[in-house]
């Protein structure tokens, strides 16, 4: 969404992070050529696809000056809900229901934020606990497995399967990405969303129905997180009650790192993609180049800061 932003931010998304990203790729490739092997790229992109869905959901929320802290728990909830509804409804309907659970959580967030006017960070904080708790109470923490072979094969295809040379989740992520790109760029809703982020009061004065936009935004955020969770669950073909634990930080990190302004109104899908790629390739690259799992975290931290620094310096000049 370069156009959506002033020249300053043009640099920011255009040069800063990609710069760091490019450097990163080169370094890893030099350390271990296996990093660029087709299989590694495709499996990393597979992870990337899942993260992208979540990040773009987070991105939508952030664009409207909000944030969605509940994504992690929603993912756990969906993971469990999907498997247990597959027990009853079979793969396809089961999966659908599972994902809809995520949408439901998002919808509730939306209502809390849009109609009851609870600040996003709080509403979603509440949902964080509720979704997690609900799901744990339901399963008692039991990991859900033992699907029928048929279900397992069908389900696994979504997470682990290939469409030609490309992993299924990637295809789907690209598809979703395109839709979101169009929606944000060339639809009333997309524009209203940016208005909300840029100046809520003015948005109202040009006829934006704030509460509706917010409900849609958070429902989408929930749905996208749910989709991510679904693909991950499918890949593991198990319902894991703590699936989402690690993902919230990643989704916020990805969105902000990519250059979606935490103050709202600036950024878009392009940024979400960037942030996602940096994170997954960084993680994978470090493993492939055999960095100790402890040093890894520290390095990830440094890179995050460096990537961001590069962009800031660019922005200055």
């Amino acid at each position, binding site marked *: 969404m370069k*156009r*959506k*932003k*002033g*020249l*300053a*931010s043009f640099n920011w998304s255009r040069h800063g992070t990609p710069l760091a990203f490019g450097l990163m790729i080169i370094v890893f490739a030099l350390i271990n050529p296996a990093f660029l092997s087709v299989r590694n790229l495709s499996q990393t992109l597979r992870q990337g696809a899942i993260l992208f869905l979540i990040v773009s959901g987070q991105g939508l929320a952030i664009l409207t000056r909000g944030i969605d802290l509940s994504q992690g728990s929603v993912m756990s909830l969906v993971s469990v809900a999907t498997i247990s509804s597959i027990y009853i409804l079979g793969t396809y309907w089961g999966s659908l229901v599972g994902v809809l659970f995520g949408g439901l959580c998002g919808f509730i967030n939306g209502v809390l934020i849009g109609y009851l006017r609870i600040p996003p960070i709080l509403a979603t904080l509440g949902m964080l606990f509720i979704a997690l708790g609900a799901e744990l109470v339901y399963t008692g923490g039991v990991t859900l497995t033992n699907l029928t072979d048929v279900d397992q094969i069908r389900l696994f295809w979504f997470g682990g399967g290939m469409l030609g040379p490309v992993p299924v989740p990637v295809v789907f992520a690209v598809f979703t990405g395109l839709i979101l790109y*169009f929606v944000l*760029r*060339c*639809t*009333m809703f997309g*524009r209203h969303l*940016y*208005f909300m982020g*840029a*100046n809520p*009061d*003015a*948005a*109202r*004065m*040009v*006829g*934006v*129905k704030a509460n509706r936009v917010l409900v849609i935004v958070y429902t989408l955020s929930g749905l996208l997180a749910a989709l991510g969770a679904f693909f991950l669950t499918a890949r593991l073909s198990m319902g894991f009650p703590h699936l989402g634990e690690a993902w919230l930080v990643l989704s916020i990190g990805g969105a902000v790192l990519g250059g979606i*302004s935490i103050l709202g*109104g*600036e950024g878009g899908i392009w940024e979400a993609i960037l942030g996602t790629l940096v994170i997954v390739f960084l993680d994978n690259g470090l493993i492939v180049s055999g960095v100790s799992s402890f040093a890894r975290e520290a390095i990830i931290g440094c890179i995050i800061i460096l990537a961001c620094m590069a962009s800031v310096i660019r922005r200055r000049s």
Partner: protein
Amino acid sequence: MALKGVDLDLYPGEIHVLVGANGAGKSTLVKILAGVYQPDSGEILLDGNPVVMRNPEVALASGVSVVYQNFNLIAKMDVGQNIFLNREPLKGKILRRIDWRTLYSETEKILRRLRVAIDPRAKIGDLSVAEHQMVEIAKALSIQSRILVLDEPTSALSAQEIRELFGRLQTLKKEGVAILYISHRLEEIREIGDRFSVLRDGENAGTGHLREVDLREIIRLMVGREIENIFPWEPRPLGEEMLVVENLSSPGLFSGIHFAVRKGEILGIAGLVGAKRTELAHAIFGALPVDSGRILIQGNPITVKSPKEAINVGIGLLPEDKEQHGLFPMMSVAQNISSAGLRLLKRKMGGLDLKREREIARQFVDSLHIRTPSVEVAIRSLSGGNQQKVMLAKALFARSQVVIFDEPTKGIDVGAKQDVYRLMIDLARGGKSIIMISSEIPEILGMSDRILVMKRGRISAELSREEANEKRILEAAL
């Protein structure tokens, strides 16, 4: 590249008036004096020796205090805290802690000197634009400064508030303070100023004594061309009633508002700040709830519960406070222009026609002489006046039948003002109905076909263009 080699000299005990068109670089100059921006070249001499305004701290230390055009107050803090920000009085020997009592009592004193009744403990966020401006001024006056810079200090003030301000300025002048006074209101320049300088396109177009020149000369220097009569009003045939408002009331704001606007008519609404004119506008625009009364468009009653509906029935509004209610700062000029009329960009198969959006935006940029590198740049990078023009374009783009201008020429220069007036006339000729809320009586007199005067939420007088004059308006308003 806002300024090119500007020379400006300022003597103690004088009020030096700085005038110039929008984007002429006045605000930039102010920010450089205040140490907010750094000049690429040139220097600032204070008592003949050079000073470098590295940052606002230094500027304040060397006795420069500024009243900015777009107020610099913190909405979440109260009046006292704002006025004494970073100058908080301290007490205690070992533990240097803030002396809140003195802080508030001092604030009270300062405000009383300006004869404004504002509670020192009131949150800025709860005050009106006018009150913001008074606080801003009080803040600047309270600083024991040797150089006082005022950028458009009266844009939101009512007549008598202005008088109070001028009184203070005169006394400061006697105390030997050097005052740089920036304004668009030519009529007040004479009243207050000793010498003047004109900025045009970032250069000093001329300096002189106000006694020696007349306004037309200054205007010529400003816009670089002759301007005979800045109000291009001429009699027009008026059509049937377009908008009718029947005893509209809103709890605690206004009541029994009753008027009509005809096709092609310009209806001026005068009154003091706080007469609830803005609220009335917002109510008609569906942004404020009304408890009784109704609104008719071309004879058929309509319900506007939200601006969305208002826009759809063809009511447009240029809000007074564009920072809060108008601008999408980080979004492009084009997107701002189209924001109110997006529905008109809808393609049949869904989605917005971005190409058309940009074309139309370009047309407006040309027709309104909006100064911008392109329609793609973020609107925050434009000067105040140009932003105002974009707001106007926004209302026009939405194809409004009734356009409400709330203080349309607030803080913009003569040249731009004239453009705006011309546009109003063109609109009127095109059969649109215009409601113009303004605190500038000359403007009201110059542009309106009919004048309503509001006073504490009621209509206190209705005057035809012929019978209206400054005196009668003031009588009705006070």
